[in-house]
């Protein structure tokens, strides 16, 4: 028995809408016209929100902000394929997912405005809060999926991460646990080609992210992440599979971050205009728009109306945010434990009584400017 081939693996790529908005009819997901329009509307809302958030940041009305420009199809399409009882585990670039699943815009602004209450979300929306340590979140999704499995619930979990996130041991451990326990989970990589300044090629020598699933004995698929129909279909299929007890799927959404990493970043330092231009042609909203227009599902007047509605929603969110009373210093203490230990209560008491001796409860420190990479 010399050198024998003992296993074979392949990786496939799913794509439905091409860059000109032409669809592969065989693969087209079954969606009603209102559903098609919903996808368009959510992506449009997200883009308008993004644009607004960047302005708010420049005006100092929110802090550092991470735009998802160009990646709208990924979060909108995947969230659209889920059921309300499913759970999602974001990083920090899934605003679209939050919106589609029902989170009020004000909450997302609060988070980026440095107000913890934004992370509380609303109790009827099944999203875990944003958290920043890259790669650490997918494990929570897998744990949640294991809980759903053990409690025999008809719910699945979805964990998001970036291409950079695939380098963290935690993400890889999450894949391994997902495989071993055949957890009802979808692990979604928004491969937007960059982790801050580092191109995908510096993260891993693997040709695709999807093939990482091979290491853990389950299926990985690459999906055109600028094609909302492919994203939707891939997520729906993976969700059905998970619900049927057939285990996890790794989805690599192949996309591109059109904006800076965050408002603290300057992407002209590390990438070319040509690259941007190339990707601009693959715009996910444009592509769906062309398809819907060609199908007669969308037409200019309707588009204008959708845009106007989205603008109004975002403006409403902004004014809700700005009318929100400030968080209280006591909030720092109140949510650490279910029952506050006496020594912590003492710290709180002392601090509040100290504050009460200060003019207007002023915060006498100056904060020296945003710096979130």
């Amino acid at each position, binding site marked *: 028995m010399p050198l024998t081939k003992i296993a074979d693996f392949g990786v496939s790529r799913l794509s439905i809408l091409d860059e000109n908005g032409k669809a592969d009819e065989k693969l087209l997901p079954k969606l009603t016209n209102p559903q098609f329009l919903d996808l368009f509307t959510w992506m449009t809302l997200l883009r308008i929100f993004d644009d607004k958030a960047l302005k708010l940041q420049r005006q100092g009305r929110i802090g550092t902000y991470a735009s998802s420009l160009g990646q709208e199809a990924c979060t909108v399409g995947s969230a659209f394929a889920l059921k309300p009882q499913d759970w999602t585990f974001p990083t920090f670039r899934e605003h679209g997912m939050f919106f589609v699943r029902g989170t009020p815009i004000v909450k997302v602004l609060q988070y980026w405005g440095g107000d*913890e209450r934004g992370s509380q979300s609303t109790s009827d929306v099944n999203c875990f*809060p944003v958290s920043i340590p890259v790669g650490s979140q997918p494990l929570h999704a897998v744990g949640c999926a294991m*809980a759903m499995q053990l409690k025999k619930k008809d719910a699945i979990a979805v964990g998001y991460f970036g291409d950079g996130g695939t380098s963290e041991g935690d993400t890889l*451990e999450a894949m*391994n646990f997902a495989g*071993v326990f055949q957890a009802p989970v979808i692990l979604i990589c928004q491969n937007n080609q960059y982790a801050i300044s580092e191109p995908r090629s510096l993260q891993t020598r693997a040709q695709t992210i999807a093939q990482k699933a091979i290491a853990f004995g389950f299926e990985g698929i690459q999906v055109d992440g600028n094609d909302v129909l492919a994203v939707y279909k891939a997520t729906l299929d993976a969700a059905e599979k998970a619900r049927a007890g057939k285990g996890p799927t790794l989805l690599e959404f192949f996309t591109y971050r059109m904006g800076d990493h965050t408002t603290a970043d300057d992407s002209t330092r590390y990438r070319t205009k040509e690259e941007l231009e190339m990707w601009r042609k693959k715009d996910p909203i444009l592509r769906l728009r062309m398809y819907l227009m060609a199908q007669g599902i969308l037409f200019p007047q309707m588009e204008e109306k959708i845009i106007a509605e989205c603008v109004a929603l975002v403006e409403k969110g902004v004014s809700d945010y700005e009318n929100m009373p400030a968080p209280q210093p006591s909030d720092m203490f109140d949510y650490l434990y279910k*029952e506050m230990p006496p020594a912590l209560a003492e710290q709180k008491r002392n601090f509040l009584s100290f504050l009460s001796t200060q003019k207007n409860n002023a915060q006498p420190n100056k904060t020296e400017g945003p710096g979130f990479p």
Partner: protein
Amino acid sequence: MKANMVQALNNALALELESNPNLVVLGEDVGIDGGVFRVTDGLQTKFGKNRVIDTPLAESAIIGTSIGMAAFGLNPVAEVQFSGFLYPGFDQLISHAARIRNRSRGRFSCPLTVRSPYGGGIKAPEHHSESMEALFIHTPGLKVVVPSNPTDAKGLLTSAMRDPDPVVFFEPLRVYRAFREEVPDEQYTIPLGQAKVTQQGNDLTLISWGSMFRTSMEAVQQIAENEKYSIEMIDLRTLSPIDWPTIHSSIQKTGRCVVVQEAPLTLGLASEIMARVMEKNFLHLKAPVQRVTGFDTIMPLYKLENYYLPNAERVKEAIRKAMAF
């Protein structure tokens, strides 16, 4: 029943698995093997593979998935095989288990217990013998428990498993099989955050926990033969949150204090006790608080471990020093 600490812990787990259908035990070798120290012995046979789960060898994933489970209705009890293997899971503990309630303004919580054998004295190889509880005590959002005997172990573990917040539960290796005692058969809890005054006294307050409580007892017994000091002994039991009122009122009575810890000297828990005692009882103090500790060096391999660990002689020396001041 007569039980050593391993048996008492096993019993606590069995009773809680019985009474709480959401409790799951997970970790490396916790299943058919019953855990490398047999704390989970027999549990998988009795409660099945869905309740007592052998996981892959990955501490970060054990804790990380436990967080997901805990947020969604389960009460995971994760075993980390030795406390030195908590480090790969440190980020999940610090950044997530300890923070999810605060981060979500109370919407999500993490009723997770992480059990881990800890401390020296059993000739274990490297990374199996250190006492790094301070790392977890310093971390806001965690609770930290160390029992010193089978009866407390059972009651404290039961409380930990029912606690709405994450608890790091350290089981002193040296005590595991050191002795048996009568432990109540039924389920009971011992509240977290309450120290136990095991012996009243007027001259000096002796504070310790885990295996060092026994070392301290030994010292007190030996010293009692000749020196007639009246020593108040406190077994801390919960290291976070600490039962400060018990400590302070004892020191207000005695004016003298010795703290004994297995951990390295610098920023071990003794430091915090000394700091608070200074803050609250400065004028009551008749002598500086003495501490008996491990050294600021790596816990050595076993041929030297008994030099590293505080022993009764060192505790007696500290008591005498405090008394003589």
